């Protein structure tokens, strides 16, 4: 174990990420026990950003696997280079390829030279340890989740034609989920867990100040308080995320606003609320003066 929870918090802050104790403790546990870190929470609360920031903190390259419906091991782990295999077979048939019989060519085209490396394989074959981000895992199906278990628990993968490939260096793995479907207990129990919620006003102010060090103090507070108020309104369907409050402040800065008044709100509300009904609802209460 090389760091403590306060040290993690400090390092993240130095790289522009304001983290709470719970998240820092989860990172500490994940690092201490060589476990993947599973982060759940609403969209836009900084789940993906934590992997990027950890890559900066640890000075490692970030390898990202963006999950989606229908993703399988050929997209995530590796795929046989079909075209290269065909060309090798053609070359062999015409007598211009490598020497040997049918068995030799069969063995040859199912070797690592014919393998196209995808993010998971790249992350464990890298000489230099990396940060592996498996983003939006909840978009995948259960089979893919089960396939990941071997990698997450043992840091190895098994390719039937080649055998088991063990990690050259252990990646620091971050998995994120928006909760579109519940993840299995088998996966959860292999991970350190953190839930990220929307930040409170003071934390939001700290985040905004980190991003816009030169912004007007009062304007930053206005934005943070207005965003908190919008999030608290039950009729707003798509709650504003941290990224959207940053966008809102950026829009206000671009307009040269000093405070968030009615006019400024009307001009820039589309940066924070997405959808006609939400905008109407957001504009109905009195904005922060």
């Amino acid at each position: 174990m090389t760091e403590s929870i306060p040290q993690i918090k400090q390092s993240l802050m130095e790289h522009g990420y304001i983290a709470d104790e719970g998240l820092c403790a989860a990172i500490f546990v994940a690092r201490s026990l060589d476990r993947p870190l599973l982060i759940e929470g609403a969209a836009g609360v900084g789940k993906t950003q934590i992997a990027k920031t950890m890559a900066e903190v640890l000075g490692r390259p970030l390898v990202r696997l963006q999950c989606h419906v229908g993703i399988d091991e050929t997209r995530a782990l590796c795929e046989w280079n079909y075209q290269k295999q065909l060309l090798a077979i053609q070359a062999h048939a015409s007598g211009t390829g490598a020497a040997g019989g049918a068995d030799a060519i069969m063995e040859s085209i199912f070797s690592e030279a014919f393998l196209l490396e995808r993010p998971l394989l790249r992350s464990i074959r890298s000489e230099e340890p990396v940060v592996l981000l498996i983003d939006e895992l909840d978009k995948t199906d259960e089979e893919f989740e089960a396939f990941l278990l071997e990698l997450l628990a043992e840091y190895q993968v098994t390719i039937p034609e080649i055998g088991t490939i063990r990690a050259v260096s252990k990646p620091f793995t971050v998995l994120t989920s928006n909760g579109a479907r519940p993840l299995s207990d088998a996966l959860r129990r292999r991970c350190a867990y953190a839930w990220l919620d929307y930040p409170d006003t003071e934390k939001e102010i700290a985040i905004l100040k980190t991003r816009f060090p030169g912004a007007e103090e009062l304007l930053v507070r206005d934005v943070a308080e207005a965003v908190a108020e919008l999030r608290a309104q039950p009729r707003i369907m798509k709650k504003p995320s941290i990224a959207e409050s940053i966008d809102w402040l950026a829009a206000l800065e671009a307009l040269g606003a000093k405070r968030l008044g009615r006019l400024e709100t009307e001009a820039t509300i589309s940066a924070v609320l997405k959808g006609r009904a939400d905008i109407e609802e957001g504009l109905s209460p009195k904005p922060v003066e």
Partner: protein
Amino acid sequence: MNKGIVTENLVVFFGNLREGGLLIGPSETADAIAFISAAGLSDRPTVRTGLRAMLAKSRKEQAVFDAAFDTFFVGAETMETRQREILDKASRRQERIETGRDALERYEVSEELAEAFASATEERKEWLKNMLDYAQDGNRNLPLMEAYLKKIASGWLSEEGGVGLEQPDGQDDSLLHKSFASITEEEIPQALRLVEALVRRILLASERRYRRNGRRGMPDLRQTIHRSLRTGGVPLSPAYKKRPRSSRRIVVLCDVSESMVRFSEFALTFITALSRRDGKLRAFIFSEGLAAIGTEDLTHFEKNVHESGLWRRGTDIGGALGALLAERPPAIDAQTLLLVLSDAKTVNRPLAEEMLHEVGSHTREILWLNPERQFSAFAERIATKYAAEHVTMLRCSSIEELARACASAL
């Protein structure tokens, strides 16, 4: 730090967590002990957040963990306070027992009975004394009578101490199973969010079912051979069949009488979101007349209903089906799945039956989503009589039932 005691305490704590529903296996136990050994026990917040990250793997589990941790790991001051409270409680109980025994000195009573007597109302005291006199006559089954009185006394003490189970916090679940009629105005945004989440889940599941058959569909041999001509007959770029597009059209007929408008809004939101992929949806609202309604933006559904002139009018299903048949260009054809959102409480039932038969012969299938928990006699009649004519009536009294019906139909 005495490692033996720490391990022993942790094992008891893990037992409490297991009782709370957390899955704590030997590997989690070993991890936790390794963590404590590394991080130490001196900093309570660190131990708490560290163990929570390791052992609680969802938001719900985190809440269970926090409660269990706060109860189990307490500081010296809290421990002393608790001990004092326990001693105070015990001494108050002893006082009550003695008071009860003094009052009932001519009877041989248990501690529990004496305590219950001391804290009972005058009326109950009188009743208990009568019962004890009755039991002491010697003519009755004394052990049985004592057991009976003990049970009564235990009940009184429970009332006294307010013993009871806490209501679980199942707000989301309750909304899922709540009838549409009882969803309050304040709960509507939350219910609509629930509908959105369910739609996402259903779409994801249906997409997975399709993808499971193969990432890119079945191989398209014709296209593959055609492409291979460019590379001297070598099939370098295999082609795969695309997902077959459904030729089905969906028409939704929404009853917007006063009691039905909320159900129609929820159901139409569901159906629109689920059928968005196919893009062949048309919706109509009806009461005593029929009007087409756009499905691009349903946020103002209720307002649109008010403006349509159909609000607070009677329900005429037969008339609405007749008007639907008369639509030009035709709204329904042999490829149409007609979804009727109504409780089947209509005027002119013979006409409704006649038109249902007529519309049924023009469409592929009619699916009737009925929000009533108990079907009316007319609804039962439709459900049974027209089942053979491709009319299926499904009970959709809650969001959960509606989701299930829509998932299977769409």
